[in-house]
């Protein structure tokens, strides 16, 4: 177990080095002058551009800059952004609660929606209920997040407000500490947008997994010895069927914590995704690199957690 975690940590470090290096190559290779000119301000003369390059550290060679960045990372600092020379750590500290609120809230919702529908489908295979569940899943599986988000805005923000029910705000974020009610109100539409798309995946996953489990011999044994159908389904069936769902949840949360770009963009939530998108649009490399590092870390860490969890939940799986 400890060996496994150590190996994963080494793997994480390798992945981070590769990913940051690729990010640096994408932005820097032959681009330092452009970046300096960009941040020197409008109509900058050559001297001002040179000054900007020195200020941003762009006058050094590629490897020096990259090493400097890694060095900062080792000391827990993402550096300053190019645009306003604000510590990126501060910006991330501001953006992270938004993304965490969005993703965790949505995760609760998609489990509450996806698992019951999946169970319903699996316990009544090839009936009207099953088919309804399938149609639900396929509809939302085929719906890109921004399509669903904008349609939500059109119906639940615009048409409702038109009709005199100004229930949902169009955009923005209110911290939980400021006002829990406002916080939830601003997040309801984003939560549902993210949750419905994800719930579709979970519906299918639960249905497939539970169908597999319900076909097992021990389920028949449990029924044969006289246990009630409901007891068998929920105590014996669902419990075993949830293992893949737990692992899937870990992966999804990891990926989404790195920034639910589209949902954040549609609903104007100032989370990590927005931070990264702005960084990309401004050519603000340190910001992008910081989010890239966070994203890859989340993904690899959650994958590791999932692997460990899997071994704990299913003793047949050994970590090797």
């Amino acid at each position, binding site marked *: 177990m400890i060996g496994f975690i150590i190996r994963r940590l080494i793997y994480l470090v*390798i*992945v981070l080095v*590769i*990913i940051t290096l*690729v*990010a640096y190559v*994408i*932005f820097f290779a032959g*681009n330092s002058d452009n970046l300096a000119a960009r941040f020197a301000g409008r109509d900058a003369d050559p001297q001002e551009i040179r000054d900007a390059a020195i200020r941003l550290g762009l006058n050094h060679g590629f490897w020096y800059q990259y090493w400097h960045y890694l060095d900062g990372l080792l000391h827990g600092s993402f550096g300053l952004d190019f645009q306003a020379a604000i510590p990126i750590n501060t910006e991330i500290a501001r953006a992270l609660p938004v993304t965490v609120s969005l993703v965790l809230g949505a995760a609760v919702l998609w489990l509450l929606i996806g698992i019951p529908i999946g169970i319903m*489908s699996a316990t009544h*295979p*090839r009936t009207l209920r099953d088919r309804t569940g399938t149609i639900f899943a*396929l*509809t939302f*599986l*085929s*719906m*890109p*997040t*921004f*399509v669903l988000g*904008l*349609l939500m805005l*059109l119906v639940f923000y*615009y048409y409702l407000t038109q009709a005199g029910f100004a229930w949902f705000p*169009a955009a923005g974020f209110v911290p939980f500490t400021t006002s829990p009610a406002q916080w939830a109100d601003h997040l309801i539409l984003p939560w549902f947008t993210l949750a419905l798309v994800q719930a579709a*995946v979970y519906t*299918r*996953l639960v*249905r*497939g*997994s539970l*169908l*597999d489990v319900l*076909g097992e011999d021990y389920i028949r044994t449990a029924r044969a010895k006289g246990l009630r159908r409901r007891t068998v389904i929920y105590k014996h069936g669902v419990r075993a069927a949830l293992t*893949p769902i737990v692992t*899937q949840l870990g*992966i999804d949360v990891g*990926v989404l914590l*790195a*920034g639910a*770009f*589209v949902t954040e*963009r*549609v609903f104007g939530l100032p989370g990590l995704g927005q931070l*990264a*998108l702005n960084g*990309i*649009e401004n*050519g603000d490399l340190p910001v*992008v690199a910081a*989010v*890239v590092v966070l*994203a*890859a870390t989340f*993904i*690899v860490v959650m*994958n590791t957690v999932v692997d460990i969890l899997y071994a704990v939940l299913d003793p047949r799986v050994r970590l090797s």
Partner: protein
Amino acid sequence: MSLFRADAGVEVIEEANDHEIVGEEGTPDQADIVGRTPWALAWIRLRHDRVAMISLGFIVFLVLVAIFAPLLTALIGHGPNAQYPNTGLSLSGIPVAPGHNGFLLGTDDQGRDVLSRIIYGTRVSLVVGVGATLVALVIGMVVGLVAGYYGGWSDTILARFMDILLSFPILLFALAIIARFGPSLELVVIVIAMFSWPYIGRLVRGQVISLREREFVEAARALGSSDLRIMFVEILPNLLALAVIYATLLIPVNIVLEATLSFLGLGVQPPTASWGNMIAEAQNGDLFTVAWWFLVFPCLALVLTTLAFNLLGDGLRDALDPRHGRSQMTPKSKATRRADAKGRADAKATAEAKASAAMVEAEA
């Protein structure tokens, strides 16, 4: 060689007896026994799947629309980028609603015909979706074949490489690359292909690892076939069914990815119409609140197209791989997860997989 797997010949004899109706008992009539290739059998099975056939029909329709886009817009009488300030916008500059002034689906904020733009957007979606998937398929199959067949060091390196590529935050990197080098259709295709081939690669690798132990490979080796010949002539045909299924399921993912990039402003650039950038224009300044058609119709085109490919992919899976039980891929990406979730969910296939567990065993 067009066998999916070495034992497909058995299936030919069994199912040819069934008077084309798969899985139904028919009186074996000697005259009716025809040797059919597995592909022909799959087509017969697919033909009985109404949902898949409707989806296929819709996709054929989309392809025709994309090919004949200039002809169609000429018939409508509105070019995709032409602005109609007099007929296409009201006096106060508001887009015209569907069905007015000869604009079947209305106009956008610049007085352009939404229908004509959706028709041209079909081209972009299909070119990027299908193009990127084909590139990913070729790279993924070659890398998967090499890694799976040779094993050892080359496998370790290639498999690790694919794993690392899969832990990249894809959208973020795609956006960064496009932002750096400037958006263009070619770059969008390349970037999408670059990040989607590992899914195919991993899947193919897993298959090849089990296939290379099979008797027909041993036989080929005993006959003195070269590695290249074994990989591409003996093993490759056995992967085609799988490749077709996963390519069909990857196409909608890539179409959505292109639309997302365009929506975020880093895909296909205006004035060239793509469904994604049409939706972005509708969102700009909340225009869709005054002109819902400007948002809803491109969304509809996108959703229907994605749905059609997903449904066809499901149908193809049933038709090409009826013994399919569960996918070989570990569900880690959205694409694979979707495919996986759907695959596992198929009760019929699961039952069949159980029935022929012995046969499937070698594939696990």
